[in-house]
């Protein structure tokens, strides 16, 4: 049996069939296709058609719009053309007709799936095909159609965004900015009334969490309340945007898209990306610096090709972590498939991340819904196939040279030591009669194995009191002993001759005169290496033992050299250079389309170039190396209708809880349509005109009246638009795990606000840094992160799920982390004030940015003065204040932002 490519079941089948039958498609017109004789037609109508209708049309007909395996069985043309595997029916040749093979329930193809049809029916089909497969049915065989590009480009997201006219609205006084006008117009259309504006306390809390992922301090709240100027809120926004915590918050959103992690999901052969954090820091810094988004895109794909000079080059190389930290799968018994899977990770992350297109759907066939031919997938895959993941040193060239120099020196010193040690090593290896003994024993084992095929080296070694490891290596040696020693290979040789040869070798080495570091002639050198000197030599003696034997001058010299090497090793120049996990150019090459996604079956070539739907019918091929830079430029271009729209939508989503397009990484046919298409286009155009500035975008969004809306419900609106698609109020939002954890640390006073640097395990009790600096694993995602809907970093994520389960609340009520924060929080308020009432008020101010109501205050006071259950008094390990602090941190108000 042939080994079939280990690919997924369905296309394994297709692949097998295609290999066998694919040529039939190309073999010209099928014979006997037009001889419709009456008897044949009658036979068809009576015995064939009803069977097809009953058993096959459900999955293989135009009428049901199903064409599994791209096979249509409701027309003559469809049958003759066949599906992915080739012609279903070859008139006159039953054995070459896949349909019959399927009906017979062959090895790899069985139809219909519900069960084998009767022998009579199968015989009918055989007869029908043998007699020419008469078939009067007309109709189209073509399942996949060429893309009608002009029509395809009329789809909303493929049209260039144009800054629209402002709509006319009734309630002119409500509208503060153009954004409001667009939103209000829709509301008025839907007969909805915007609710009131949020109060200043709500607003500053909302804005502070939104931009920094941290709660405002009571002092910040007070300052804002006191500031009566008309631009008081604008000042708050500017202050927050200038904070380095802004990048920590918004960088994390991008890291979700970039499926940022420091390792791989699997465990075999994995190199950890220990410098992954440099990419994370690069993202944070780029956002803090308000790097234009088009540049942000380009640097992540091609920083090495864009920034050539230090120190900028060193600063931006970590950007390449966007691809450089991508999946590196285990190159197992099907390395070609694993490599293709890796390319899919790149294509998927780049196209969904930047373009909101699911290009990955076109890996095995043309995209079923969007105008993305399979060839286009491989055009992009080819770009990444022409690159390789690598670690780039983050140091000036001179420093790299110095590093190399010193490493070379060290190597040279070590080489010299090795040379001095070699004579001693050979002598030690050849001491006694072990060379003769083991080589002979190895030969004898071969003889033994001829009689006992199952014989084990270990048993043999044990029986003969030999070292099993040396015997194994000896065995390897005698199986391939080199010139003039072929006798060792022959179990049929007379033992006495083999013994003589072994002894001769022994004597030769024991008596070998010192070479003092010089090499022997070629064959002999190879032999000495194999027996004594190479790392895995048969009689290798470790360094320490050899050194111990040295005396006199040699000893001195070796010590001197070793010392020198060690000194260099400790020098600054020898310090390992910091690296970025990046990608660089490999040899540029186009890929061929993998038919059905199978690397073993390749079709037409796919020139490296941009997607047709975003360019033109024949996009220019990429000319510079892999084409990475040209791809980056095509993505980050003002002419690209998607990039700016995708980004402003992501930003909108993170301010309002839902994007204007609800599927932020899919702007294709199956994605949502924008609720406010004009607003989306307005923002996209405005964004590009502003120089792709994210901070200006935040500012514009946050200064709108719609951002100021209260989160309170309004019954009438709710009945019309319960989902709040038209934004008549602000969505109440749950803090994500990062903001929630960081907020607890802030309130407890424990937060370490240091920026950047290597990652820390989130579960370490000493870790009081912001959550964005936690170790992110694809293999074993931290429990807390997973529990609170942090995305799986194996795949790009467009938004967080939001689930509420009791395990999360177990964390609130029992986890050492929350208890720790509660204790610190309690200690903090108890230290800051002495009056119990004031303490409660201080706790409320710190946690919620407001005073406790009289009811809340009295509940808290009652609780604080309560008495413990008598039986539990002795085991309770939390004070009343600590318990109250835990309640404040665990409450809904702390988790949900109005």
């Amino acid at each position: 049996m042939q080994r079939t490519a280990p690919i997924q079941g369905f296309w394994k089948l297709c692949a097998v069939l295609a290999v066998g039958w694919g040529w039939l498609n190309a073999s010209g017109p099928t014979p006997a296709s037009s001889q419709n004789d009456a008897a044949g037609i009658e036979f068809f109508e009576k015995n064939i058609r009803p069977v097809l209708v009953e058993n096959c049309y459900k999955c293989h007909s135009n009428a049901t719009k199903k064409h599994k395996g791209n096979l249509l069985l409701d027309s003559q043309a469809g049958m003759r053309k066949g599906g992915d595997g080739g012609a279903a029916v070859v008139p006159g040749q039953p054995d070459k007709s896949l349909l019959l093979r399927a009906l017979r329930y062959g090895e790899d193809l069985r139809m219909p799936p519900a069960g084998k049809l009767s022998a009579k029916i199968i015989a009918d089909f055989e007869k029908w095909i043998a007699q020419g497969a008469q078939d009067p049915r007309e109709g189209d065989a073509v399942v996949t159609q060429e893309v009608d590009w002009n029509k395809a480009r009329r789809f909303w997201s493929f049209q260039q965004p144009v800054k629209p006219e402002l709509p006319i609205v009734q309630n002119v006084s409500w509208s503060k900015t153009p954004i409001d006008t667009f939103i209000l117009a829709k509301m008025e259309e839907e007969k909805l009334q915007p609710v009131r504006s949020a109060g200043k306390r709500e607003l500053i809390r909302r804005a502070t969490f939104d931009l920094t992922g941290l709660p405002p301090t009571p002092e910040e709240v007070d300052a804002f309340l006191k500031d009566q100027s008309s631009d008081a809120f604008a000042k708050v926004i500017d202050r927050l945007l200038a904070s380095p915590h802004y990048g920590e918050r918004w960088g994390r959103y991008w890291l979700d898209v970039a499926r940022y992690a420091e390792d791989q999901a699997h465990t075999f052969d994995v190199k950890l990306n220990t410098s992954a954090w440099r990419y994370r820091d690069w993202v944070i810094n780029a956002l803090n610096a308000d790097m234009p988004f088009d540049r942000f895109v380009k640097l992540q794909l091609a920083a090495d090709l864009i920034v050539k000079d230090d120190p900028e080059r060193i600063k931006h190389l970590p950007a390449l972590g966007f691809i450089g930290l991508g999946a590196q799968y285990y190159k197992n018994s099907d390395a070609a498939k694993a490599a293709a899977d890796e390319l899919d990770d790149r294509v998927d992350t780049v196209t969904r991340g930047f373009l909101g297109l699911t290009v990955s759907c076109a890996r095995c066939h043309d995209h079923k819904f969007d105008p993305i031919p399979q060839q286009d997938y491989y055009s992009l895959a080819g770009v990444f196939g022409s690159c390789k993941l690598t670690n780039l040193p983050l140091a000036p060239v001179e420093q790299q040279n110095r590093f190399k120099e010193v490493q070379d020196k060290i190597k040279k010193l070590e080489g010299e030591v090795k040379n001095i040690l070699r004579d001693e090593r050979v002598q030690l290896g050849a001491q006694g009669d072990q060379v003769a003994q083991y080589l002979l024993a190895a030969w004898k084992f071969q003889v033994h194995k001829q009689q006992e095929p199952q014989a084990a080296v270990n048993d043999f070694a044990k029986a003969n009191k030999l070292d099993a490891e040396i015997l194994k290596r000896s065995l390897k040696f005698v199986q391939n002993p080199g010139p003039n020693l072929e006798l060792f290979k022959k179990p049929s040789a007379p033992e006495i001759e083999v013994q003589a040869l072994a002894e001769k070798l022994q004597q030769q080495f024991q008596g070998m005169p010192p070479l003092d570091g010089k090499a022997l002639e070629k064959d002999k050198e190879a032999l000495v290496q194999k027996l004594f000197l190479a790392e895995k030599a048969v009689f290798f003696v470790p360094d320490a033992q050899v050194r111990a034997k040295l005396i006199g001058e040699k000893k001195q010299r070796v010590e001197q050299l070793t010392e020198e090497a060690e000194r260099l090793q400790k020098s600054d120049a020898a310090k390992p250079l910091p690296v970025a996990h990046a990608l660089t150019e490999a040899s540029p090459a186009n890929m061929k389309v993998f038919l059905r996604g199978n690397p073993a079956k390749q079709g037409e070539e796919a020139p490296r170039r941009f997607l047709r739907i975003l360019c033109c019918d024949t996009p220019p091929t990429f000319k510079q190396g892999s084409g990475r830079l040209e791809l980056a430029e095509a993505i980050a271009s003002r002419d690209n209708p998607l990039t700016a729209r995708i980004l402003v939508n992501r930003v909108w989503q993170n301010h309002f809880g839902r994007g204007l397009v609800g599927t932020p990484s899919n702007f294709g046919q199956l994605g949502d349509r924008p609720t406010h298409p004009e607003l989306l286009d307005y923002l996209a155009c405005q964004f590009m005109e502003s120089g792709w500035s994210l901070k200006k975008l935040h500012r514009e969004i946050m200064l709108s009246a719609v951002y100021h809306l209260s989160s309170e419900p309004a019954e009438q609106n709710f009945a019309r638009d319960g989902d709040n698609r038209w934004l008549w109020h602000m969505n109440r939002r749950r803090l994500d795990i990062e903001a929630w954890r960081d907020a607890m640390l802030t309130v407890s006073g424990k937060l370490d606000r240091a920026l950047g640097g290597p990652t820390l395990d989130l579960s370490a009790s000493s870790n009081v840094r912001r959550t964005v600096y936690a170790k992110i694993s694809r293999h074993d995602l931290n429990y807390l992160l997973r529990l609170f809907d942090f995305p799986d970093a194996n795949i790009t994520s467009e938004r967080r799920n939001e689930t509420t389960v009791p395990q999360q609340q177990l964390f609130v009520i029992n986890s050492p982390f929350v208890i720790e924060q509660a204790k610190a929080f309690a200690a903090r308020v108890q230290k800051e004030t002495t009056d119990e009432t004031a303490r409660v008020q201080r706790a409320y101010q710190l946690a919620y940015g407001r005073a406790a109501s009289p009811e809340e205050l009295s509940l808290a006071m009652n609780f604080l003065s309560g008495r413990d259950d008598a039986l539990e008094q002795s085991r309770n390990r939390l004070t009343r204040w600590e318990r109250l602090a835990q309640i404040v941190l665990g409450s809904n108000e702390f988790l949900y932002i109005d």
Partner: protein
Amino acid sequence: MPTMPSFEKMTRRSLLQRLGAGLGSVGLAGLLSEQKLLAETAPAGRAISPLAPKAPHFTPRAKHIIHLFMNGGPSQVDTFDPKPALSRYHGQRPPNSNLRTERGTSGLMKSPFRFRQHGQSGLEISEIFPRLAEHADKLCVLRSMVTNIPNHEPSLLMMTCGDTQPVRPSMGSWLLYGLGTENQNLPGFVVMCPGFPVVGPQLWSNSFLPGIFQGAHINNSNLDPRRVLQNLNNSFLGRNSQREQLDLMRRLNEIHLQQRGGSDNPLEARIQSMEMAFRMQFEAQEVFDLAGETQNTREMYGRSPFADACLVARRLVERGVRVVQVYTGGGQPWDDHGDIENHRNNARTVDQPVAALLTDLQRSGLLEDTLVLWGGEFGRTPTSEGAKGRDHNNHGFSVWLAGGGVKGGMAYGATDEFGFAAAENKMHVHDLHATLLHLMGINHERLTYRYSGRDFRLTDVSGNVNHAIIS
């Protein structure tokens, strides 16, 4: 803040949009009827839990799955697929043996173990499973299993998640997503392994499904009920004192809710969830506390981490947990490259506990709606690796099913004369998944999740339900 999609937050319309296409009637019928959501909006206090039980597509034959994972890959020809020809041709290369496996192998190697027929069915089982053999008439051995790649990682992933790369949800997660779970005070998908198997947590990953559908991993090397689940045990306050604390939290949360109109699904859901967490502390500890079992029962299972896990598995399904997965051990215990004789030790680890589990499930009537799956990620070569070992083999291997709707005392499919490759009625892992889902009342083609522009499913674009093994 990225907050969507929130299952609680949705109105009926968006719920229909999000789940309708994906779940078909599984999600819908379940969510709508159980949660009384057929009214235009959810009544107060009836917030939807995504783990609430949902109706299947059709009447299920099983409600729970226990997957006894023989990680490392047991050898079929030494366990459930006897091949007398191996003795006759011992040491010879099999004809046409160009099947690729991970490493090189040499001649055929007879099994060091004897097979005997058992039960009324006469099913042949290796001598290394003396206790399990007593259940022969309950077992449905699938002898013609195939998978794609002869390496552990891809095959472990294929068996658990239906794909060779770590980018898909596990079967347990799919089942939770599709069916929910019957006991809201316990995790719905429990995985027990002392330490991690190879690959690790990805084997019970939710992947792109929401995080709550992930398997809860429990280290059963030393079952301490207080520590089995993270943060399960309250070590700071007595029960009454904690209750008093949570009463105040609840009161404050209710005030917060009242100020916001008195009806808000996410806020209410979290209030309820806090109460559930309080109860879970006690119920979950109780289920992992084996002290409540009789001496007889403990002895029937034996005392070992694997035995404990099997007993816990019974206790879990008894309480309505949907999916339980038990690994033989950490790493890959069945991976006997060096000496297949070691299978005897692995069999000793699992034989008595598995037999006891079947006895126990049968006795309590649970076996009727509990499906037990026993097997590895692939099988082993009938040819020898080194002197006495066997290499990985994806071309043919055996697993068995018992209980929940499958026929007992039968062997389905066959490998070739030497047990190298499946020859008759080949069954791919996708087919196994399709069949398992079918038995759980799910049409594997209709259990889908819209993600990244298409509807994903456990069986990708493959999988045929094997009706021949269904009773």
